[in-house]
């Protein structure tokens, strides 16, 4: 800014010069910018619906304002506490279980000396990531089935009765979380594996000379070296704590486990697209977004102060 003043070149003038110099780049960027304005920024304007009563004839802009009516309705909803509890429980459960496991996996894999085993495990661990949610949920449904489901075959082998797992509400969160771990741990570990590959080998040599065991090296050399990667991913993770995957929960949800599987995002879909209650559904979605964004910012501030790492 200061420089522009001293040089006495206006912003407009600078833009003109830049366009003349880089017109090809502007032409390239144009379609992408237009796309983002229409498909990313315009829907954000559509969020005003949360404070309006949607009228198809008048459109989003012309629909009358109703203030916080939809939010009041949401907060009074008798299943609102259940919804919030389920959303929080599921994401905290996945966070507590799903976040550290890939780190531990990467650390341990790093010490496998047999190259062939290491490569095989690593490659095979990615495979579930490439299955679609529909496929994974179909597998879960079949494996959990009461007739011939694999989990029940194992239960029968050790003399236990068959259980229709997906019909028992108490099982829902375990199934959701652990299937997620199965599907995601190999993939999530990649970034740690690559970070570990960059650890200075002289640190390890020094530790070995000092008589450190492998576990000590893991704790005192490897872990501190990948600390910033861990923190960064944790912040990212915190930002989406309220957005428990709609895709998977929706597919596994049924009337019997509804009490434990109702989450905000499935509710948004239900009232929005199934019942056509557009304004209300937008309000519920917005509520969810705001909590997410606040959590992201809060975590970022926290980690900046305490851990000296931040995302922005």
């Amino acid at each position, binding site marked *: 800014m200061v420089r522009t003043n001293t040089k006495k070149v206006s912003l407009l003038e600078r*833009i003109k010069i*830049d366009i003349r*110099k*880089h017109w*090809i*780049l502007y032409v*390239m960027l144009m*379609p992408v*910018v237009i*796309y*983002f304005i*229409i*498909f*990313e920024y315009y*829907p*954000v*304007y*559509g*969020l005003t*619906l949360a404070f309006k009563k949607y009228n198809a004839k008048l459109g*989003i802009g012309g629909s009358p304002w109703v203030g916080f009516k939809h939010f009041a309705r949401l907060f009074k909803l008798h299943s609102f506490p259940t919804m919030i509890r389920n959303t929080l429980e599921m994401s905290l459960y996945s966070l507590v279980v799903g976040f550290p496991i890939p780190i531990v996996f990467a650390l*341990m894999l790093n*010490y*496998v000396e047999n190259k062939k*085993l290491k490569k095989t*495990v690593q490659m*095979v661990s*990615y*495979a*579930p990531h*490439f299955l*679609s*949610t*529909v*496929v994974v949920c*179909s*597998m879960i449904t*079949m494996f959990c089935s009461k007739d*011939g489901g694999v989990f029940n*075959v194992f239960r029968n082998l050790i003399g236990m009765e068959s259980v229709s797992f997906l019909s028992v509400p108490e099982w829902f969160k375990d199934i959701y979380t652990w299937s997620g771990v*199965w599907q995601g741990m190999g993939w999530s570990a*990649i*970034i740690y594996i*690559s970070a570990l*590959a960059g650890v200075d080998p002289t640190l390890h040599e020094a530790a070995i000379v000092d*008589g450190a065991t*492998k*576990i000590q090296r893991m704790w005192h050399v490897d872990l501190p070296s990948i600390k910033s990667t861990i923190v*960064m991913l944790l912040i990212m993770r915190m930002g989406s704590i309220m957005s428990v995957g709609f*895709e998977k929960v929706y597919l596994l949800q049924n009337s019997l486990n509804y009490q434990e599987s109702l989450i905000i995002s499935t509710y*948004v*879909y239900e009232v*929005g*697209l199934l019942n056509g209650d557009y304004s209300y*559904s*937008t309000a519920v*979605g917005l509520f*969810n*977004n705001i909590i997410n964004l606040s959590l992201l910012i809060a975590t970022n501030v926290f980690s900046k102060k305490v851990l000296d790492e931040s*995302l922005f």
Partner: protein
Amino acid sequence: MKRSYSDKIFDIVNIGIMIVLLIVFVWPLWFVFIASISEPNAVLRGEVLLFPKQINFKGYERILSYQMILKGYANSVFYTVVGTILNMVMSILLAYPLSYRSFGPRKFFNWFFIATMYFSGGLIPMYLLVRGLGILDTRWAILIPGMVSVYNALIIKNFFMNSIPQELQEAATLDGANAAQYLWRVVLPLSKPVFAVVGLYYMVGNWNNYTKALYYIYNEDLYPLQSVLRQLLISSKLVHDLVMTAEEMAEAIEQAQLMQYGVIVVAALPMLCVYPFVQKYFVKGAMLGALKG
């Protein structure tokens, strides 16, 4: 002496855990495969655990004669191929100007795109937009929304900036090449590894997506395979669809059971076949996706 002893125990435990993990990752997939070629009754009785029993391909024959699945397969191939091409073109158009060091508004546009990672209009505003544009219930509703992932585009941008030596640009400029020629002749050919990784991300995403069809597509002829699969397996439409009379119930359930596993194999196979080839780039890709904007 003490140290090597403790390390030995560690190695044994470590290898043990890795082998258990190997089984945990592979066995469910193996099971689906052997169940798909076994007699459904044997699967139901829990006799198929490690090896197929009474191998037959009746399930696959049934799948091949099921119109919905074939149509869904063709649709998915279309959405994946066309979708991924659009994804890549748009991502490169986003990444290249942002990687060009002397491009004036680089910072501004950087934030213009990154900001969208932190908020979104959400389901209904997006649905109304798609409806308003008149592409609801058409193939465009699958191809256009979510066409660019900023995250993926930034991976490409970072590759352009960090892995292509800047001297090449200076040399190209001296030779009189403009920005487009430099992109086409130098940058694109040098960026194959990152295109392989990002292209794979997009491809997998397109092949596996079912929510766009769930939100925007009503016409079953336009369903991607995942939607057909969801209908068949999870809404257990299979049984109702195939049953003509009550007597056929038992057989239909058996058929359904047999077809179930086969359908999963059919849906999962393409991506499981592709990824090992791009695998070597993954670790590189993770590094390139440096999270800071």
